[in-house]
């Protein structure tokens, strides 16, 4: 069995999960329309999937240049919107001069925290926050408030040996709790409620599939840490940078999903995208 917590193996797990979803989609398609099955089995698709040019495109230095630019009026998925923002007074676009949020450093910290807690520690903290969210934040009636979840997370980490590490991991869990309804559509959740003895476990499995697909997107960017540097701080930093980059830019194109499509991850804000990936890459249960 592949352990996702191992830095060198989560990539394989993500690709395996994506391949499994693709096969399931092909089978479903074959039942619906033989022509779709033929298309799914088209060897040209496999060739395209393995096309090294895709990796080259993913690592295109122009993307890095775009990433360094402030958001401008030339991008966006709907009618080329002019994104709001505060351009420089001289009108020339350049990276913002104010102190940016320490995003990459924070993602690296959260990733290290989840990895160091391990699957058992993550599962324990996840359970504690899930119960607190339902008891204190009315999570059973809607999306729990962020402030309430932060308070609950602080309370859950009060007795932790390494409180900062616990809180970093709890932040990931809290954000994933808020993102559940965005990642798993109503129809799927309704199906889980009706068909599962343990809804929480079933939902966790469903979320895991979505996280795996998102992680596969991350792998395909080709920007994650080197497998040779397993467990090193440099690998964690590379992974964190890749996660931050993907999540900051992913939604500049619209991701619309059909209901009950487990192979599609919808548009996600940066925070939920990062939390999902850190949880999966870090080895959360």
């Amino acid at each position, binding site marked *: 069995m592949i352990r996702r917590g191992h830095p060198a193996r989560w990539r394989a797990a993500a690709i395996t999960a994506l391949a499994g979803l693709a096969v399931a989609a092909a089978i479903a398609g074959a039942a619906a329309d033989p022509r779709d099955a033929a298309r799914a089995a088209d060897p040209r698709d496999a060739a395209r999937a393995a096309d090294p040019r895709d990796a080259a495109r993913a690592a295109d230095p122009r993307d890095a240049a775009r990433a360094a630019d402030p958001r401008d009026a030339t991008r966006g998925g*709907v009618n080329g919107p002019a994104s709001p*923002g505060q351009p420089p007074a001289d009108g020339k676009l350049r990276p913002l001069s*104010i102190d940016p*949020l320490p995003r990459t450093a*924070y993602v690296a910290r959260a990733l290290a925290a989840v990895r160091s807690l391990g699957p058992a520690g993550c599962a324990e903290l996840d359970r504690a926050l899930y119960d607190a969210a339902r008891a204190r934040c009315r999570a059973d009636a809607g999306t729990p408030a962020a402030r309430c*979840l932060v308070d609950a997370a602080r309370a859950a980490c009060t007795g932790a040996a390494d409180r900062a590490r616990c809180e970093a991991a709890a*932040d990931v869990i809290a954000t994933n709790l808020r*993102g559940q309804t965005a990642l798993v559509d109503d129809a799927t959740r309704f199906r889980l409620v009706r068909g599962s003895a343990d809804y929480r476990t079933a939902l966790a499995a469903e979320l895991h599939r979505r996280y795996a697909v998102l992680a596969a997107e991350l792998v395909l960017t080709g920007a994650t840490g080197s497998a040779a540097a397993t467990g090193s701080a440099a690998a964690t930093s590379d992974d964190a940078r890749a996660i931050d980059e993907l999540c900051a830019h992913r939604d500049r194109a*619209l991701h619309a999903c059909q209901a009950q499509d487990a192979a599609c991850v919808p548009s996600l*804000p940066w925070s939920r995208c990062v939390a999902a990936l850190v949880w999966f890459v870090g080895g959360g249960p």
Partner: protein
Amino acid sequence: MLDRRRRQLQIGALAEALGRSPPVAPPAAGAIASLACFLVDPAAPPGAAGAAAPGRDATGTTVTVDGDALSLREIRVPAVRTTGDGPIDAYAGLALLLAGPGGDLAAAVRPPEAVEPDGDDFLLARLDPLIDADPFRGARAPLARPELIDVYPFEHHLHGFIDGFRRRYLAQRGRL
């Protein structure tokens, strides 16, 4: 479009003159064409939503173009700003001009949670409420913080706004 309609009417008149069955008459000019003017007028009152937001709803009248009566809607804004949350005002003004005011849905939505990015812990959870901070419904404060722009889910809010606009416009005009 009006010229093509006029030619269709002339073809119909010619067919009648020749004793033939005339083609189906085109719809009235007002049904196939209208005018909408977005006016930048420094004397226009600013709106409550922003300094460049329209202070009044669009007004309507009828004008005559080559003998055809056409409806004219116009809206006046004091300025167009391209910085900060200025584009939001422009989007809102254009939507108000083309499809009229939105419903009361915004009033029914609970106010978004405050976004508090300062601090060195819980960065994810503290930024997550940005997903509910819809600038088209008045949550403009995050747009004034440049450090949030890179992670602000603007496309999410813009898509919701355009989706609502398209529903209103389609119901009124029968087309998009």
